[in-house]
């Protein structure tokens, strides 16, 4: 005979109340929402492709998205670095070579190519990059400190937003984004070992990655200065933190390993800098470059105004990072933009869009009000479609 008497309350598993259940449901959303944005982004970009290519195919989509630098990353992935600058830049005066393209992303493409040998670099990029971006969004969750609306908007901006095409083809932006998030998340957790490793990978991904060493230095100063208050005690404390010292020397390792490789292949460790002459790039005053961008006249230079505007928005967002006391992030982003402006305003839209902390603070600001959040979310997706069309048409401002 069964005992139908109810169990005492203390024996029953506690039924979570509404407040306790909510975070679990939201935790599932932390993964589910970016996954949904990932799918929406792919659908929007494919729709944009179909709108200008009536005879559409997945391979055709990957090939059409693979414009400008995508070719170079694919070339490095397939053939490695050239020994000699030979290809003339559109018949111009200087020989160009693939040394300007940092190695980590093409290495990843090459690895993916071994797993999927039937795919060309464009198709590999169309698979690898969105997955890296998805990982970047997911890894950024701790940086939002529970701000779910901001986190969702961050995911939407990167995966299905106006500039998602940068993170959906064979460009290093997606990997740069992921490593930036991992590096700053490690710093936030006082995990200098992790920050050093992520930073080393970051500096092997893009030129500006090495600037993360200044973020590490800033964070060390912020951590050790208050108790030390003077330089000498600070240095003594630093010697007791070999994890911090490891991070400082590890971050440049990525770019320095690249210079070593270039030395053995080309004889010139700084070939990635010197080859810029093949593209007629020369160092200019960043602020002069901004001024020139805004005051440029003539049809050929109309894009310059948009590029200069993107730089100003990026610098303003650096100010917002500073205002929210994210000093390490603010320094990284501001110096990245100023270094890029040292070559003029070219590609500034891409450079601003690929800085994760700028996306983070923009998402936080735009998600403050629920109505604004929804408006920006919908507008972002609409712009994903429109700007992907422009990308496919190779609009110069998006280069």
């Amino acid at each position, binding site marked *: 005979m069964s005992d139908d008497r109810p169990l005492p309350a203390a024996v029953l598993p506690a039924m979570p109340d509404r407040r306790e259940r909510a975070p679990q449901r939201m935790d599932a959303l932390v993964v589910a929402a970016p996954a949904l944005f990932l799918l929406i982004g792919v659908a929007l970009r494919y729709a944009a492709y179909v709108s200008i290519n009536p005879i559409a195919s997945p391979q055709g989509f990957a090939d059409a998205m693979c414009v400008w630098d995508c070719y170079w990353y694919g070339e490095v992935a397939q053939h490695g670095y050239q020994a000699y600058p030979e290809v003339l830049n559109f018949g111009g*005066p200087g020989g160009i070579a693939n040394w300007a393209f940092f190695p980590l992303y093409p290495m990843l493409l090459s690895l993916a190519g071994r797993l999927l040998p039937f795919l060309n670099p464009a198709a590999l990029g169309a698979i690898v990059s969105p997955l890296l971006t998805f990982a970047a969004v997911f890894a950024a969750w701790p940086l939002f400190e529970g701000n779910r609306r901001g986190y969702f908007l961050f995911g939407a901006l990167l995966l299905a937003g106006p500039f998602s095409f940068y993170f959906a083809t064979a460009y290093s932006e997606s990997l740069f984004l992921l490593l930036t998030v991992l590096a700053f998340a490690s710093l936030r957790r006082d995990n200098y070992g992790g920050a050093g490793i992520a930073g080393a990978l970051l500096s092997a991904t893009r030129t500006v990655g090495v600037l993360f060493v200044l973020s590490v230095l800033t964070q060390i100063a912020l951590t050790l200065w208050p108790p030390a208050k003077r330089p000498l005690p600070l240095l003594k404390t630093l010697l007791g933190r*070999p*994890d911090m010292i*490891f991070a400082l*020397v*590890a971050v440049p390792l990525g770019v320095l390993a690249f210079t070593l490789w270039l030395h053995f292949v080309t004889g*010139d460790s700084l070939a990635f800098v010197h080859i810029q002459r093949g593209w*007629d790039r020369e160092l200019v005053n960043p602020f002069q470059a901004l001024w020139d961008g805004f005051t440029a006249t*003539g049809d*050929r230079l109309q894009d310059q105004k948009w590029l200069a505007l993107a730089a100003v928005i990026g610098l303003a967002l650096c100010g917002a990072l500073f205002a929210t006391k994210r000093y390490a992030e603010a320094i990284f982003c501001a110096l990245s933009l100023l270094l890029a402006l040292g070559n003029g305003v070219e590609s500034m839209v891409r450079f601003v869009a690929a800085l994760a902390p700028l996306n983070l603070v923009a998402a936080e600001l735009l998600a403050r009000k629920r109505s604004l959040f929804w408006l920006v979310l919908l507008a972002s997706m609409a712009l994903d479609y429109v700007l992907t069309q422009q990308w496919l048409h190779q609009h110069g401002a998006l280069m």
Partner: protein
Amino acid sequence: MRAPPAAYWVAAVAVLAVDLAAMALMLRPNVSSDYRAYYIDKSSDCWPHQTAAAYVPGTTLSFAYPPKGADFTPNKICGWFYPDKNGDWSYGRFSLLRFNFAPVAGDLTLAVEARAMVSPAHPVQQVEVSANGLALGTWRFDSAERATKTLSVPAKIAASGRIDLRFDYPDARPGRELGPAEDAHLRAIEVETLTLAP
């Protein structure tokens, strides 16, 4: 701290050793003199194009893009800007072209159609022409309109089956003088066609 301090010290010292070795190599580039002059010192505007430079005497080469006839690119060595629909501007203080062909008996006539970068302040562009190191003569371009100039290439050079043609521009001016949107590099003439005729 996740790992023992000693592990961080060992890792830091090992990484620092690699960092320093890589930085030391930066100071010792092992490159050709052409590479050093063009990419590192920037003391030259000539990055020599590696080309077979094949040419059939009598062919008129087009310097425009898209080419209006036989393209000059296979004969281009250095000192030329991005070609456009009108031709190709010289780039820097000199330009080089190379022609490999079946040896020809007798003189060749070099003919160039070009316009010059001139202004009231700088009304003339002189072009000093030499072939295989031998001075052939000097052209004077004094108009922004197209003009044809000719020079004779001696038979002994024509018989060699190879001509390294050099144009020097003592009056070259910054491209910005053409307008604010133009490139700042030195320019002298914009060549439209070139022919080496028996």
